[in-house]
């Protein structure tokens, strides 16, 4: 009986919280399906009388908008892949080799994670300007690689730790080098960990605003995050429905990827949090 009451309380509490967490999504959807006239009806019209996909059509038929989406995808994916690639050797060493000050080095990497990109962008912007590296996607990707690497090292170390070392030892006894062991045995076995690290880095990059906003000046180079910020500056009350549609288009890819792969990612994060 008592447990039943507890269940009711559990559902009650979660229902309230669910309203808080779901409302912004639902409201964006509601706004984005409205005609301009219905925007002025506010909350009285959660489900529009005359829902229209016109706003999405308007946004997605704009070639510039598609370009922003493509830029966002390209920068996030390349930056995420770079972060993982840079992290693999270090994570392998942290997992498999014994050396002095290993724990301190791992904590130092965690500390680096705490430095705001803003701090390092101040001088990097100057250097990149001096070296003519501004307005290049390659510069943004390189920075994403650097920003994503520390977390990737932690996640991959945990993933490598989970692979029994005996498998590697057998290969080493058979005469394989460390590098061969890594590429032929460890990396294939660590695929879920690699995928989690990559997806997490990619989703973080998709959200990045500061780096592309500072490094890319040309409209055509922008990813979606910078584009919607500029778009928001140009809309008025009569185009709220378009901004809502644009926000949803910017949000949905990241949410979809994350929700689709969440079991894998959450378990990587959970084991990372417990073991790290």
């Amino acid at each position: 009986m008592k447990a039943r009451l507890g269940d009711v309380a559990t559902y009650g509490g979660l229902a309230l919280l669910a309203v808080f967490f779901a409302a912004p999504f639902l409201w964006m959807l509601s706004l984005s399906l409205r005609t301009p006239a219905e925007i002025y009806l506010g909350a009285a019209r959660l489900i529009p009388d005359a829902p229209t996909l016109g706003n999405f059509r308007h946004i997605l038929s704009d070639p510039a908008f598609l370009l922003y989406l493509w830029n966002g995808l390209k920068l996030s994916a390349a930056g995420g892949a770079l972060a993982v690639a840079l992290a693999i050797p270090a994570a392998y060493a942290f997992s498999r080799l014994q050396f002095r000050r290993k724990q301190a080095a791992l904590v130092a990497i965690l500390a680096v994670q705490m430095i705001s990109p803003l701090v390092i962008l101040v001088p990097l912007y100057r250097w990149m300007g001096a070296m003519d590296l501004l307005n290049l996607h390659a510069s943004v990707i390189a920075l994403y690689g650097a920003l994503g690497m520390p977390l990737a090292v932690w996640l991959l170390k945990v993933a490598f730790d989970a692979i029994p070392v005996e498998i590697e030892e057998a290969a080493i006894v058979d005469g394989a080098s460390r590098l061969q062991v890594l590429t032929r045995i460890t990396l294939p076995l660590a695929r879920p960990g690699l995928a989690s690290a990559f997806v997490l880095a990619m989703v973080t990059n998709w959200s990045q605003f500061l780096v592309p906003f500072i490094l890319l000046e040309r409209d055509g180079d922008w990813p979606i995050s910078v584009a919607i910020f500029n778009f928001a500056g140009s809309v008025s009350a009569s185009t709220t429905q378009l901004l809502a549609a644009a926000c949803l288009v910017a949000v949905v890819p990241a949410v979809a990827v994350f929700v689709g792969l969440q079991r894998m990612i959450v378990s990587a994060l959970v084991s990372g949090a417990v073991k790290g």
Partner: protein
Amino acid sequence: MLLSPPHKPLTNGSEGTSVTKRGPAPADGRPWPWLVPAVAILAVFYAVPVLDVFRLAFSDATLIRPPTSWTAAPIRALLGNPALPEVLVTTFVFTAVNVVALQAFGLAIALTLVRGEARGLRGMTTFRTLVLAAWVVPGIANGLIWQMLFDEAPYGTLNSLLGFVGIGPVAWLSDPGMALVSAVIANLWQGTAFSMIVFYAARKAIDPVIYEVAALDGASPWRTFRSITLPLLRTAIAVNTVLVAVQTLNTFDSILALTGGGPGRATEVLALFTFNTVFYNLDLAGGSVLALIMFAVAMALATVIHGWLGRTA
């Protein structure tokens, strides 16, 4: 090690943590070749820039002009800037409230989820997914979404809702005090998931036997929470406090999109102030001083974590 309770070895799925289980390292185990890429990246993208920030903080550089002289003038100018105390107070309030609220929310949700799962209730994964979905919303989009929700026009979302129940329009974004509250609400929506995951993981790592014993002894849920869950989550809470504090301190894109720092400077936190100083006022030297403050706070907090790890590892 980091977030699991200190009293108990790990049983979480895979291998235990370290040294003892593994055989001796094979002879070709020199770490340096493996660490070169990571160290190079850390040097080029973190260490040297931070040193350069130090240097620039003592210069007269602007964003469009290289430094010509070296003095402590920028530091003096910044300390004399009347905006600074206001910004620091705002930052402190914003960070402190978020650290408490995010963790209270995250802990409550994590424990409720664990309870629901233990009782076999349906819908727990769906709820967790919903919270996580808010987490991956880009900061800029978060600011824009909440700006629409907080719209102060009579047809604005929250105000038109409040209108139904007869509560007058709230100046969500134009009243200085309220704007900070609004910024906290938007940050809570997005940030809770992180604490939820951390506490969920830490709670799952507590030995269920302890709870069985408590149940046999007839301990009330509150007593169980006070005497078992909370003490065993102490390390997780401590470390998470620092991580959340740093994240909150570094947050600025959602505020930029939500309020732009206004009205006045009411929601201008340190990160946003730094951004504006460098990239709008082009004051590179002053911005470097501010960046140094951000760096120093982050590193001080990181050192605190290091101390905790040293004790529990």
